[in-house]
């Protein structure tokens, strides 16, 4: 049941921090589409402000010129995820220091589509672009796991015999387990986990991987993964150069250290 925000805040002084944690937990579900990493991990979230049932999320990117379509996707995803919280009635997204910040902020906060936000510049919404980058993310996650298995001495035949149901306990190392979890998550996202006995290593559209094409596809996926990682390294470096080492979510924002929401989210994940 939902309590009126004002009553709850008064009755429960800790409620505010709990809500902030809930917001950060939702933000952890939003990824940079090019880098396939959560905004909370990338340091893109510049701050969260709560005012009753209204939430303002400020975010920032590594450069003034980061592509507008990806920036819009992140802004729209922030709004969507935070709006899922039952007590939230209003979400303002505030992209900062960006060439199209005004257009994106007003468009997303009013719930407009990309075409509605940029009627002169866009011909379609971002579904196709989003799918292109989910495919890249799929290939990169799959490649990391395949490399890990090959390094552990698995043969190609053994790899191609892996079933979806085998994935959770597949790799013995902690790193391997994490890679398998991330791969499984994107299989799930793409609706490819229906049958636990189906082959685990498939193409992004679910078609099986041909044994004869295994090495070629692996090489292609490797280039995709390298591109994603190279970009991620560059972007992390540029963000640090642009804004320094400080984490805006640390105590200066008024949150006591022990209740630091990002840490809380991390605890929840681990």
């Amino acid at each position, binding site marked *: 049941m939902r309590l009126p925000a004002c009553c709850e805040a008064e009755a429960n002084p800790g409620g505010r921090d709990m809500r902030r944690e809930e917001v950060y937990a939702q933000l952890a579900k939003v990824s940079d589409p*090019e880098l396939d990493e959560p905004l909370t991990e990338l340091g893109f979230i510049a701050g969260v402000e709560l005012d009753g049932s209204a939430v303002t999320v400020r975010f920032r990117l*590594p*450069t003034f010129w980061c592509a507008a379509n990806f920036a819009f996707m992140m802004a729209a995803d922030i709004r969507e995820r935070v709006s899922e919280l039952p007590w939230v009635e209003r979400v303002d997204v505030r992209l900062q220091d960006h060439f199209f910040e005004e257009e994106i902020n007003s468009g997303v906060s009013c719930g407009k589509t990309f075409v509605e936000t940029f009627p002169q510049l*866009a011909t379609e919404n*971002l579904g196709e672009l989003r799918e292109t980058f989910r495919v890249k993310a799929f290939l990169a996650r799959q490649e990391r796991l395949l490399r890990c298995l090959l390094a552990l001495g698995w043969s190609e035949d053994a790899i191609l015999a892996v079933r979806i149901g085998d994935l959770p306990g597949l790799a013995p190392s902690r790193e391997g387990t994490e890679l398998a979890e991330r791969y499984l998550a994107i299989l799930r996202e793409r609706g490819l986990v229906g049958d636990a006995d189906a082959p685990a290593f498939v193409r992004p559209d679910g078609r099986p991987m041909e044994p004869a094409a295994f090495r070629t596809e692996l090489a292609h996926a490797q*280039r995709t993964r390298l591109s994603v990682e190279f970009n991620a390294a560059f972007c992390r*470096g*540029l963000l640090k150069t642009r804004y320094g080492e400080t984490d805006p979510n640390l105590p200066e924002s008024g949150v006591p250290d022990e209740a630091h929401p990002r840490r809380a989210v991390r605890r929840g994940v681990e």
Partner: protein
Amino acid sequence: MFKTDGGEELFIIDGHMHLWDASPENQLNKYGAGFIGCFYDYHRNLSPAEYVWDTALFQKYSPERMVKDVFVEGYVDMGIFQPTYLKDFYKNGFNTTEQNSLLRQRHPERFILNGSWDPRDGEAGLDYLQSLAENYGIQGVKLYTAEWKGNSKGWKLTDPWALRYLEKCEELGVKNIHVHKGPTIWPLNKDAFEVHDIDEIATSFLGLNFIVEHCGLPRLEDFCWIATQERNVYGGLAVVMPFVHSRPRYFGEVMANLLWWVGADKLLFASDYAIWHPRWIVDKFMAFELPEDLQKEFGVSLTLDVKKKILGENAARLYGIDIDVQKKEQAHDAIARML
């Protein structure tokens, strides 16, 4: 000239350099400020600490400073000026062919002057391209598809007018087309960094060479694929090379891919001066060895011969430069006396 420990001399051509004016006096708006701010972060992020400039110097540096950095200290023997006009962001432009030509006049043995065009300029732009070829004898152009022009925020190489400009380039013998992708394009919902339009035009214009700046980063995977298919597609290593210092492993992985997919004959060294100083890039690149596991996995190596090609011979071939002749012409020029 870079001399190896063994006494071998390498003739170095820097494939991408600028002499820009991004001073506040020349900035037209926040986009001009944002453009140079972004470059400055690239510069600060990937340069060794002792090479980091202050903001004011980075916004505007003198021709003398450029000559000292690049030719006197930076091992470079020749540099290719790649103009970037950005007249919607800077009053007099960021760096135009005309501005660059002034320094080339002083050191004709040292600079290759490229021009630029924009398909949105229509017929008038075709005339301008012709005048660049006639007045300056340009052999190449730098194209920036993310350039803003009024309400337009970019263009595509396959636009009908772009094809007319490419035909004109063929007609004029302007055969080296340097392509630089940026963050905006028409339509805005497409991936601006996508390189597939290069594939299309490279097939249509076999008489032209397409040098893809930054090797298509951040879309390296697509670039490798295209460059393998098209014999007239080359990779410009600006932005890639500085990683040799901050992320040598990534640099090795990218180079291994480029050498395998694109090939040692089709990669061009570039500092993107003044974003990065060529001295440390050349030093670190010469000292760099491709890790053995990557050599084994890809079946490629980065030998002295390969480095020579990347650092100068490939660009010399594209621009019709006979290195031995050029060395003689430079032997007693104003810059030779400063060395």
